[in-house]
């Protein structure tokens, strides 16, 4: 390496070359004049320099320094520092060389030269510093002079100032004075006149304000500092009862002036549909035809319930079908007909031809086409009636299509007007049912921002934070708006999914939007449907369903994979709720992440996914307050607690499973170490009985189950299988596969060695079996020194010591199967598979695992480009990881777990893997390990 190269390289790389360190520090370090730091540097540098000089690089360094002199524009700062150090250090054996080189250029003595140089530089530096500070000072001054002292207006200021505007105890007080009803306004004006026309002889009106509220009859409000001022001002004013003057508490002062939203009266004008609250027509739908000026009464039309039988007892009701509740109560003994159990006449459009003779006699027709029957008027089959607004329920169940049809004209079809009014009726109810999710496109219905399109940022309770999308507005502007002021927004061409209702789950394209109704074209059915926009959700991400599986096009692209993943994201995270309708064929993988199962304590520990053997068994409590009680196990929980229903009083108590003894077939209670498997033979049978086999065992055809088991384990983590302190693994290796049971045929005698839980736990200590992790690392085939205790425990290749060898063999010898695809696994074309799906000899990785791991999208490692989609994994082969590679377990018991391959043993058959978060090592079959590709998949 030449000198120049060395320096250049150092400056760029800052590598651990000595030069690099030297230069790098000086360049990056603080400017000279910070003695503390410099000292530190010096010490370090001194050491380094020693190294140079001792080493062969001594002369090369001096040469490079010379170069520097020739190029004073390069690395000036660095040079200065170097010189400083040199100076302070004095000269050691390296400097002789240096002088020789410098002699020609600088004929002066070194001391002089160096001091002089340094002085110059010091001066320069000081000058620089001064200019620097001056500039800073200047900038600060300008800043101070011209900076706004008033904080800028920000959106939230108004809220704060509102609060500060609220009256406090120091503000004038407010008195409420009783006055003559109806005279409030006059009195206020009178006081005002009194103030304006006051002569100097009169007492001045010293109140701050006087006002009245239209909705509060008989009171006026006076704002004044003292009560005396109020009395003064209202002195000699007739109609004011000063004796009845009350002070409004400070807290309520704001309420006095708060204008309440007008309710019922306004509502009536907007509403189109309502339901009758009480009476014969209770629950019936009415259409509001006209609203009286007073606002509390309206004319409604409804389908009559006429009793045409002519039954005399009902005659009165026929005459007064719209009886007011009061009248009803008097007549019907206080109960509505429906409630009283009297069948009310069915709804039927009025038809004068259907009327019985005795009613026809009373029938008359007016010039507006109304039929009059007693007090009721009919037209177009409908009964028209004036009712009080209180009788109407606007928040009742929304009108159904059938009900609406009864209102429509004779041909039974719904006219557009009716339909529109129905929609608006439903629209009014929008706020009750609409659900918004972050990311939804919305439009503000009312309020200040009415009509503004926006995107939901977040929703909390009834308030949504939205980002308005106004041209010119700042991008990050966000405001909070009540949810009921929002309406979902869709535009033509959007792909949407129907969330609720008859068309639930359908995906269509919006072809038309009118108000709150959208017309969708459902491509699958080639039909148009009309839905309310509030029931829709953007379905951009789920355009492709599994109903139409891809044949794997010739081009590599990820579209399909994305679609598969999308519903999961949408369902589980973005929505946070499971109420999301799932599409047919969609994976059931939606759902909250499963909590890791706590490690099982005690030998009774069972697989989490299997029915606990303890369930339903008769047990006896051995410890605690319920000691001696017998009961039946009702439920178990992962923490080892068991709900036992006591025989004696049918009380359900919670007892830890270790405090139980289970009654076995012979009727004797056995300790928990024997567990539910009272008979000695049980243990060995366990491994063979398919019924008890856990999913993780991965028998034939259970590849997906194995996945589940693995998933479970993954989150839970094995509590260090085989280490002495840890309880047996939670899943798949239940009570029977603990070491003592492992021998299978060992017979009862082996049980007697470890009959209690304590004995059990002590069993697999290093002393006995020595199954410590280090043990595994050391030997490829773990041997168990303590094996004598369990004579039939044959060391097994990949077996983990705590497992019954049989079980372990079954699990770990399991072939890779055809469902091992996992994202990120590096693969290559499987030479034994008769597929030409992927290029041979190219290193690829699984960009996307599909179909429960049976298929995958593969991408090239080199380019990250998707090579082929939807490839069956049989056409692929995982690339064997090498030492230190990040791996993922593809099969067997620990499927899905990730770790690092520490070493390969057993002639490349076994890999020693360290799982993250654990210090112990695991021996796994190399065939089950997949190398992880670290590029983003």
């Amino acid at each position: 390496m030449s000198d120049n190269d060395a320096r250049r390289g150092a400056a760029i790389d800052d590598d651990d070359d000595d030069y690099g360190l030297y230069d790098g520090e000086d360049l990056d370090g603080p400017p000279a004049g910070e003695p503390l730091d410099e000292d530190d540097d010096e010490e370090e540098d001194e050491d380094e320099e020693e190294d140079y000089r001792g080493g062969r690089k001594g002369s090369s360094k001096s040469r490079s320094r010379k170069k520097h002199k020739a190029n004073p524009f390069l690395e000036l700062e660095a040079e200065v520092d170097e010189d400083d150090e040199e100076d302070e250090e004095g000269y050691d054996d390296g400097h002789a060389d240096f002088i020789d080189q410098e002699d020609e250029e600088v004929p002066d003595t070194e001391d002089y030269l160096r001091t002089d140089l340094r002085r110059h530089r010091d001066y320069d530096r000081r000058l620089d510093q001064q200019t620097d500070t001056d500039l800073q000072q200047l900038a600060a001054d300008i800043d101070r002079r011209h900076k706004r002292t008033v904080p800028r207006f920000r959106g939230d200021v108004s809220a704060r100032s509102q609060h500060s505007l609220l009256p406090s105890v120091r503000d004038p007080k407010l008195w409420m004075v009783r006055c003559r009803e109806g005279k409030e306004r006059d009195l206020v004006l009178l006081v005002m006149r009194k103030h304006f026309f006051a002569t100097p002889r009169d007492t001045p009106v010293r109140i701050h304000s006087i006002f009245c509220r239209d909705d509060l009859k008989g009171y006026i409000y006076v704002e004044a500092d003292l009560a005396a001022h109020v009395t003064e001002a209202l002195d000699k004013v007739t109609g004011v009862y000063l004796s009845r003057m009350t002070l409004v508490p400070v807290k309520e002062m704001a309420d006095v002036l708060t204008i309440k939203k007008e309710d019922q009266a306004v509502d009536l004008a907007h509403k189109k549909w309502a339901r009758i609250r009480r009476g014969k027509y209770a629950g019936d739908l009415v259409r509001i035809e006209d609203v009286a000026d007073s606002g509390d009464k309206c004319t409604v039309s409804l389908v009559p319930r006429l009793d045409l039988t002519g039954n005399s007892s009902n005659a009165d009701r026929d005459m007064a079908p719209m009886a007011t509740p009061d009248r009803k109560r008097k007549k019907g003994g206080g109960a509505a007909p429906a409630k009283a159990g009297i069948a009310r006449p069915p709804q039927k459009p009025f038809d004068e031809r259907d009327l019985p003779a005795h009613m026809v006699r009373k029938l008359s027709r007016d010039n507006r086409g109304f039929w009059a029957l007693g007090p009721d008027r009919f037209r177009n089959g409908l009964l028209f009636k004036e009712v009080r607004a209180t009788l109407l329920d606007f928040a009742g169940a929304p009108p159904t299509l059938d009900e609406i049809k009864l209102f429509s004209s004779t041909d039974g079809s719904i006219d557009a007007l009716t339909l529109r009014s129905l929609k608006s009726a439903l629209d009014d109810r929008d706020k009750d049912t609409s659900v918004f999710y972050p990311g939804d496109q919305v439009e503000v219905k009312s309020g200040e921002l009415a009509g503004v399109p926006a995107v939901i940022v977040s929703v909390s309770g009834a308030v949504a934070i939205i980002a308005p999308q106004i041209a010119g507005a700042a991008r990050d502007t966000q405001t909070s708006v009540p949810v009921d002021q929002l309406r979902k927004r869709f535009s033509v061409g959007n792909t949407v999914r129907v969330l609720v209702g008859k068309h639930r789950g359908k995906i269509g394209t919006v072809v038309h939007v009118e108000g709150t109704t959208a017309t969708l074209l459902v491509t699958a059915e080639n039909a148009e449907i009309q839905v309310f926009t509030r029931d829709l959700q953007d379905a951009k991400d789920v355009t492709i369903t599994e109903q139409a599986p891809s044949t794997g096009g010739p081009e590599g692209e990820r579209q399909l994979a994305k679609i598969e993943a999308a519903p999961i994201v949408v369902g589980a995270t973005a929505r946070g709720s499971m109420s999301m309708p799932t599409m047919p064929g969609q994976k059931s993988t939606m759902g909250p992440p499963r909590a890791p199962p706590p490690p099982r304590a005690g030998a009774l520990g069972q697989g989490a996914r299997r029915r606990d053997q303890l369930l339903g068994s008769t047990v006896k409590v051995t410890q605690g307050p319920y000691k001696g009680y017998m009961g039946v196990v009702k439920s178990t929980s992962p923490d080892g607690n068991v709900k036992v229903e006591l025989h004696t009083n049918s009380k359900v108590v919670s007892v830890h499973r270790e405090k139980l003894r289970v009654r076995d077939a012979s009727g004797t209670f056995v300790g928990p170490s024997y567990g539910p498997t009272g008979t000695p033979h049980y243990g060995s049978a366990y491994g063979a009985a398919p019924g008890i086999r856990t999913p993780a065992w991965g028998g034939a055809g259970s590849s997906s189950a194995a996945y589940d088991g693995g998933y479970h384990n993954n989150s839970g983590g094995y509590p260090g299988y085989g280490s002495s302190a840890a309880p047996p693994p939670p899943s798949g290796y239940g009570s029977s596969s603990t070491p003592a049971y492992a021998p299978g045929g060992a017979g009862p005698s082996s049980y007697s060695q470890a009959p209690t839980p304590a004995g059990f736990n002590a069993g697999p200590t290093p002393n006995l079996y020595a199954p410590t992790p280090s043990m595994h690392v050391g030997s490829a085939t773990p041997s168990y020194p303590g094996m004598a205790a369990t004579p039939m425990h044959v060391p097994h290749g990949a077996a983990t010591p705590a497992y019954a060898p049989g079980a372990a063999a079954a699990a770990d010898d399991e072939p890779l199967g055809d469902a091992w695809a996992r994202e990120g696994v590096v693969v290559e074309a499987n030479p034994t598979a008769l597929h030409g799906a992927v290029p041979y000899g190219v290193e690829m990785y699984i960009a996307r695992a599909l179909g429960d791991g049976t298929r995958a999208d593969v991408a090239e490692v080199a380019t990250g480009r998707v090579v082929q989609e939807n490839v069956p994994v049989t056409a692929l082969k995982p690339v064997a990881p090498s030492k230190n590679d990040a791996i993922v377990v593809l099969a067997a018991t620990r499927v899905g777990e990730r770790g690092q391959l520490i070493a390969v043993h057993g002639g490349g058959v076994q890999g020693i893997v360290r799982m993250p978060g654990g210090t112990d090592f695991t021996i796994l079959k190399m065939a089950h390990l997949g190398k992880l590709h670290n590029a983003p998949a």
Partner: protein
Amino acid sequence: MFFLRELTHLVSLQPSQFTHDVEEQLRRRLHAEVEGSFSGRFGYVISVVDVVSIGAGLVLPAQGAAQYQLTYRAIVFKPYKGEVLNAIVSQVNQQGFMAEVGPVNVFVSRYLLPKQFKFNPSGVISCWSDDMDNRIERGAKVRLRIQGTQTYPTKIDAIGSIKEDYLGLI
């Protein structure tokens, strides 16, 4: 919109096809397999323009067949929202009409037809017609604007509109 794109395709040849005209075969296969195919990302491959390169044939172990990676340039077609396209009406019904833009089916809803068009079910073939006797019937040529697309594994569907100036029958 049409694009000229460079794409790759894998072709495997059986040993029996290892003849002097391997390249020719590969080209033929490429055309046959690729033209008319669809991918969600690129749309429809309309036509292969030329073959950029033919990779070395890799004989697959235990199989004998050789695999070639072909890089080719092709004209691909993918409709985009807002795009104006000419289409041929393929089907007319009460809801609107379907039109074809090459392989893409575009549905024009009645809401996206100009107001004056009325559905006319009488006659030999039903059509949408206005008072000027412009008839949108099967086979008619229309110019439409894409309002939205929906991608499936094997196709793209689109919604179109002719409710705009300069759109409609041509």
